[in-house]
């Protein structure tokens, strides 16, 4: 970014974890204006624009809110199912249908107690029609299998491929990490469904005995960032343990290694695996040691910051900033740190006008609009 004063921390990839020679730069925000759009949100998690001036926001505590023309509607959207709000669990992603203007359908992800064993829970994905300020005509698309006792590592991001199929990220549940390498369960997977909940017949494991046919890729930990580009590339990021957060380019059928290979260690200080690479397991485009806790990602294609077009923006919970990532020929060539004054950043999206919208984490979460300084 030419106009940005760049104080180079100048770590090479060998030092800071990128697999290619990239430069980590601490940028000043001299050319950015920030404005608080809304505050007092209870653990905001995901945002989605439903028009040029209206946005939906999930609060992990279980409510779906609407922001219209920059004003938070005090009345939550009605009809949101009961969710499990505990530990890392709660109402998570909101994503609008690619044909939203025609069908008004939105998609939500959340954990909820299991029907038969309420001490256990599952990740759910539903679709519903937004009629006025109410969700109607709800349809369950996905319930994770098997249920889990932990309330952590759900993943829970959603994204649409160009063919209209839906990708769902499903985390490893923390206690079940080894299951990310097995194809008979939903732990540590990216899944692909049709929007009616059926499985596309061109999924990579449809004909693999013992494998769940909805699995699209596996070997993931807690994938909370998902971006699908116009040319069909699927970028995903996932939380590592203590170190080892990853940015990956996802290909169907591939194994991304967790926990057989990892650049992180366990919270106890123990090694999870002595291996960082293995034939048949994919390497990340970039990894972070120490962790930045990547929690959400967007691809920028707006007009407000033309120099940022094509960049990925990652919301980082730790230490709390935004990472702008430039990728060239499947290599990360630039990482720039922005907006480090707001604390933990839970998510980031690009608005139709080209501004960026941040959600800060926590009980008193805020929505912050980032625009170019006039």
């Amino acid at each position, binding site marked *: 970014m030419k106009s940005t004063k760049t104080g180079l921390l100048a770590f090479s990839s060998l030092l800071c974890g990128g697999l290619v020679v990239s430069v980590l730069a601490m940028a000043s925000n001299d050319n950015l204006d920030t404005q608080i759009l809304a505050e007092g949100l209870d653990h905001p998690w995901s945002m989605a624009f439903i028009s040029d001036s209206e946005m939906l926001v999930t609060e992990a505590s279980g409510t779906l809110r609407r922001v219209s023309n920059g004003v938070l509607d005090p009345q939550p959207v009605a009809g949101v199912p009961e969710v499990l709000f505990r530990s890392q669990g709660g109402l998570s992603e909101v994503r609008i249908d690619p044909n939203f203007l025609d069908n008004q359908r939105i998609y939500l992800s959340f954990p909820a107690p299991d029907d038969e064993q309420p001490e256990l829970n599952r990740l759910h994905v539903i679709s519903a029609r937004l009629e006025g300020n109410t969700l109607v005509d709800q349809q369950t698309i996905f319930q994770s299998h098997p249920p889990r006792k*932990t309330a952590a590592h759900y993943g829970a991001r959603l994204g649409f491929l160009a063919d209209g199929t839906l990708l769902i990220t499903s985390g490893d549940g923390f*206690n079940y990490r*080894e299951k990310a390498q097995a194809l008979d369960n939903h732990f540590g997977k990216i899944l692909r469904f049709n929007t009616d909940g059926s499985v596309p017949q061109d999924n990579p494991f449809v004909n693999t005995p013992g494998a769940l046919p909805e699995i699209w890729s596996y070997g993931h930990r807690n994938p909370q960032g998902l971006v699908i580009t116009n040319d069909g590339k699927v970028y995903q990021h996932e939380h590592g343990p203590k170190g080892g957060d990853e940015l990956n380019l996802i290909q169907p059928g591939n194994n991304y290694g967790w926990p*057989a290979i990892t650049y992180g260690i366990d919270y*106890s200080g*123990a090694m*999870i695996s002595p291996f960082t690479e293995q034939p048949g397991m994919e390497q990340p485009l970039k990894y972070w040691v120490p962790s930045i806790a990547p929690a959400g990602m967007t691809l920028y294609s707006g007009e407000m910051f033309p120099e940022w077009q094509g960049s990925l923006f990652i919301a980082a919970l730790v230490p709390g900033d935004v990472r702008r990532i430039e990728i060239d020929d499947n290599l990360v060539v630039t990482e720039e740190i922005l907006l480090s004054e707001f604390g933990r950043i839970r998510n980031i999206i690009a608005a139709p006008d080209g501004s960026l919208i941040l959600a800060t984490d926590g009980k008193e979460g805020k929505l912050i609009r980032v625009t170019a300084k006039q």
Partner: protein
Amino acid sequence: MIRQIQAFLISLLIATFLLVTHTTATNLVWLSSIGMPVDLAVSVSALVTDLAGMNSRGEFPAFGLIFVGLLIAFITARIISIWSSLKKPYLYALAGGAAMLAIVILMPLAFYHLDIIAGARTLAGKVYLTCAGVVAGYYFGSHPQPGDSNEKH
């Protein structure tokens, strides 16, 4: 008193060593089961890494956690021994086992059911680590305690 401290430290080392080796072995056995190239050199290196890592790089040092657990358990056992007729090695073995059991049961309760000690995620792992506490406690109880007469040992 010095011999008691020495015995306590050795029992602490025993429990810590057994916990760390169990964690390492649990990981390596699984890695081997999915075809990862786990050989002797990898195993030794992993064990050394874990012995250092679990006592220095984690959110809590393993020996510190076990130190607190055994200290509370052994003091409690010492008080109980005043009126208990149970032989001291067995009494302290029970105390050591209770300390480790408490660690593996209580820690997940404090962390939303997340098992921070990976080796303790399974029932077998919890039983093993409880046994590690039993061994450490038995070692400690097998050494003379204050007030013991020479005839007792």
